């Protein structure tokens, strides 16, 4: 199996498991789902250290976008708590 296939399958399994687990816990806040999904994505892409430089650069670009969105959601949550 190609390393790209393994990465996509790992992401699909991990993100689905996280969503099922949070739904099972009765979580109803979409920002919590997004934060946990973003963390799982960042961890899994970090684990694939043996990808070629072009693939690593592509995934790092996407990680940067997700990380910015993650920071925005966390900031909004913090502001909500401080109110």
């Amino acid at each position, binding site marked *: *199996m*190609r*390393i*790209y296939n393994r*990465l*996509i399958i790992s*992401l*699909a399994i991990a*993100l*689905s498991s996280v*969503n099922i687990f*949070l*739904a099972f816990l009765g*979580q*109803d*806040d*979409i920002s919590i*789902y*997004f934060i946990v*999904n*973003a963390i799982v*994505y960042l961890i899994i*892409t970090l684990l694939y*250290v*043996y*990808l*070629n*430089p*072009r*693939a690593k*650069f*592509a*995934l790092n*670009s*996407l990680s940067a*976008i*997700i990380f910015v969105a993650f920071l925005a959601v966390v900031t909004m949550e913090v502001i909500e708590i401080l109110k």
Partner: protein
Amino acid sequence: MKNPYKVLGIILSIAGAVLAPVFYFFFLSAPLTAVALSAVIIGLASFFLANSRPNISPEACQILLKTGMENTAALLEEIGIRNKAIYLPARMRDGYPQAIVPINDHYTLDNIKDKLPGRLIVRYGPGADDMAIAVTTPGSINLEMLEHIPGPNAYDIESAISYILTGVLDIANSVKVDITGSRVNVEIKNAKMGYEEIWYYYCLGSPLASIAAAISSEALQKPVRIFEEKEQAGKYRIVLEVLA
């Protein structure tokens, strides 16, 4: 559009982007919205990966590899050399890693020179018979793809071989390396290239063994010879001999 990663990426991203607001505003369901968001993340990852695939097809790469191999094999066969190649670190070949195949059957490497001239036929020792043919191998070329030269330990060698075979070339699933005395044992899982009974593989080793030997030689900064390579219980085992 032939690239399956691009197709998967576009389908998942568009489906996720359309379904997320539908689930959130009409169905008022956070878990379903999260599933749509996950689809967007996986879709974008797949789409980004699609653009990082090489433009040259595997068939074209195979033609280039086979052409080089046939030419080298023809040269070795013509001269009648049946000795195993010795992989040299870059510092011994003017900064360019290559392998030498000794012409004489009863050769010794006790007095191998520190620096060999960058020619096809080289004298590697003080004796009149210490002549060899220097060739570029698949392993030599792959060393240029490493981000840094690995250190002289099993962990660094394993990381470098894994990076080339799994990440860059995608011809194996995982690699395990251990060093015992003057032997480097390399175990490759799910290798997509094997050993063939041909002259080229006998002298220079299979492409997998050649890559392992070139990386080990560069990491240890010593000449390395492929001692043995075989497929056993789904694993490809390579034993390299480090020459002092």
